[in-house]
């Protein structure tokens, strides 16, 4: 055997090409396992083989987190404009609206978890990468103010890899300050704020309300951080260590309380509420 002879293991494995009929099966992004869609849904869109957490939209997220049929969405009368006349912004909004069925990247409302009333906000990575536009900042702030008014705990589930939305320029950046100011008020009122981080939460959202939770949870394997890995790589011209900016990386560095698998999120939230809320 020559020194440079290849072993064909890897190639063989990736050659295992299976014809996947559309809409019936999903190939796991991480391990390549072919998963029957029905099975994937039952498993809360987590790969049964390797535990990879697939993206789930905001509505589905609320459904699996809150008590059955308890969610009541706050009416929102606002919708995104193009305040800077930014090129192609309207097209991108329209595309995201079609793809997600949402009008913007955030949904807010109230519901119950384990019977306890809670105000909840979700940002959806599928809508322009969950980036914080005026409407997103406004809704998150409304949710915080509602929690103060009703004296409910607040849960925000972030999936905002896009940070502050570029297309709204500085108006977006200032949403970081606006949401933070609201959270600061909430904390002064001694109300509980739980932050759940999902893939991906970066930049302007990670550097504002997502990092301000009294307790911070994260799904496994999410990309979480401030600067995107591509920009860091370009700047320092070094390879990034494996697992850099993953939930596990943040946990190791003391930035989050718990990494919680998707099917454990509800029981964990119930447990936290039970342990921390008075009168139970």
């Amino acid at each position: 055997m020559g020194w440079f002879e290849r072993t064909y293991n890897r190639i063989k494995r990736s050659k295992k090409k299976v014809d996947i009929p559309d809409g019936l099966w999903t190939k796991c992004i991480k391990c390549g396992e072919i998963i029957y869609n029905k099975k994937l849904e039952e498993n809360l869109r987590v790969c049964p083989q390797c535990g990879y957490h697939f993206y789930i939209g905001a509505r589905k997220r609320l459904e699996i987190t809150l008590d059955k049929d308890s969610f009541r969405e706050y009416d929102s009368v606002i919708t995104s404009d193009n305040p800077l006349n930014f090129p192609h912004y309207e097209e991108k909004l329209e595309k995201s609206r079609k793809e997600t069925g949402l009008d913007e990247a955030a949904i807010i409302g109230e519901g119950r978890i384990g019977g306890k009333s809670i105000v909840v906000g979700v940002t959806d990575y599928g809508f322009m990468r969950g980036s914080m536009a005026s409407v997103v900042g406004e809704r998150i702030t409304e949710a915080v103010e509602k929690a103060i008014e009703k004296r409910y705990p607040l849960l925000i589930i972030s999936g905002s890899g896009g940070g502050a939305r570029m297309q709204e320029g500085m108006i977006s950046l200032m949403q970081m300050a606006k949401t933070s100011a609201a959270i600061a008020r909430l904390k002064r009122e001694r109300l509980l704020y739980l932050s759940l981080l999902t893939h991906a939460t970066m930049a302007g959202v990670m550097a504002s309300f997502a990092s301000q939770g009294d307790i911070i949870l994260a799904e496994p394997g999410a990309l979480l951080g401030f600067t995107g890995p591509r920009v860091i790589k370009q700047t320092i011209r070094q390879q990034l260590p494996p697992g850099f900016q993953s939930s596990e990386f943040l946990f190791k560095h003391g930035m989050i309380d718990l990494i919680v698998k998707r099917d454990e999120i509800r029981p964990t939230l119930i447990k936290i509420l039970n342990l921390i809320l008075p009168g139970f």
Partner: protein
Amino acid sequence: MVERSRYYLDFEKPIIELEQKITELEGLAKKEKLDFKEEIKILQSRLKNLKESIFANLTPWQRVQLARHPERPKPLQLASFIFEDFLLLHGDRLYGDDQAIIGGLAKIENEGIVFIGHQKGKSIKENLSRNFGMAHPEGYRKASRLMSLAEKFKKPVVTFIDTPGAYPGIQAEERGQAEAIAANLEKMARLETPILVIVTGEGGSGGALGIGVGDRILMLENAIYSVISPEGCAAILWKNQEKVEEAAEALRLTSQDLMKLGLIEEIIPEPLGGAHKDIEQTAINIKQAIIRNLSELKDLTLPELLEKRYEKYRRIGKFKRK
């Protein structure tokens, strides 16, 4: 007659050429003992008009270049003109002392304040130690510590913003860059003392905002403040670095645009040609703005101050009603 070769920007080329012509003519007049007084006078008035017309019609990209000008006065240099006395304090008490953010105690018109600023370097060597004004988490945590000091001793806080952004690096992420900035936003929203923010150069996104929440946001005339750098925006939007000028335009990052959008309270004028052409005058303009704004903020009671600060941010956002 060797003048220090000055760094100049492309759009300043006609100015530089005319200045050279005048210098040549003056040299010739001296050497040949000829009288060119009239001609020189004409050229000088032409020079003044030229400067005024160029600087009155700067494009956003030209302002970006001015805001990043290597000779643009940095916060420490401005501090020495603005404050009667100041003392730098160091360290975040947690990890280290980030040279990219400076801060300490100062006196202005005999009033004590705490000042904090991003600090870019003047030379390559200084820039390396200061990371080109890009702070690590310890920089934001040093700022936080100084703000607590200000709150405790009832001193107003004045911050100077001049950064390309928070440092993008492995260690910065390990030590919680996002957390450090988020914590400051929360803290500044409720800090029980007036906060005055002045963007003196480059306001680079979240890294700028990390010391940039306050009661009033002021900008030097040619300073910029943006959610993303024009280069970053061009790369994302057009996948093309040549499009930086369009990106600078689209982002609405000039002081004039931000004033129109209602995101800042005041523009501080710069000397003709930019802040670096007359650093002392720039500092005087900043000083006057600080004194006036602080004295206005001092008239508010603490609950009024905090309520107004909250309302100021609460109002920000542009959307349609359904």
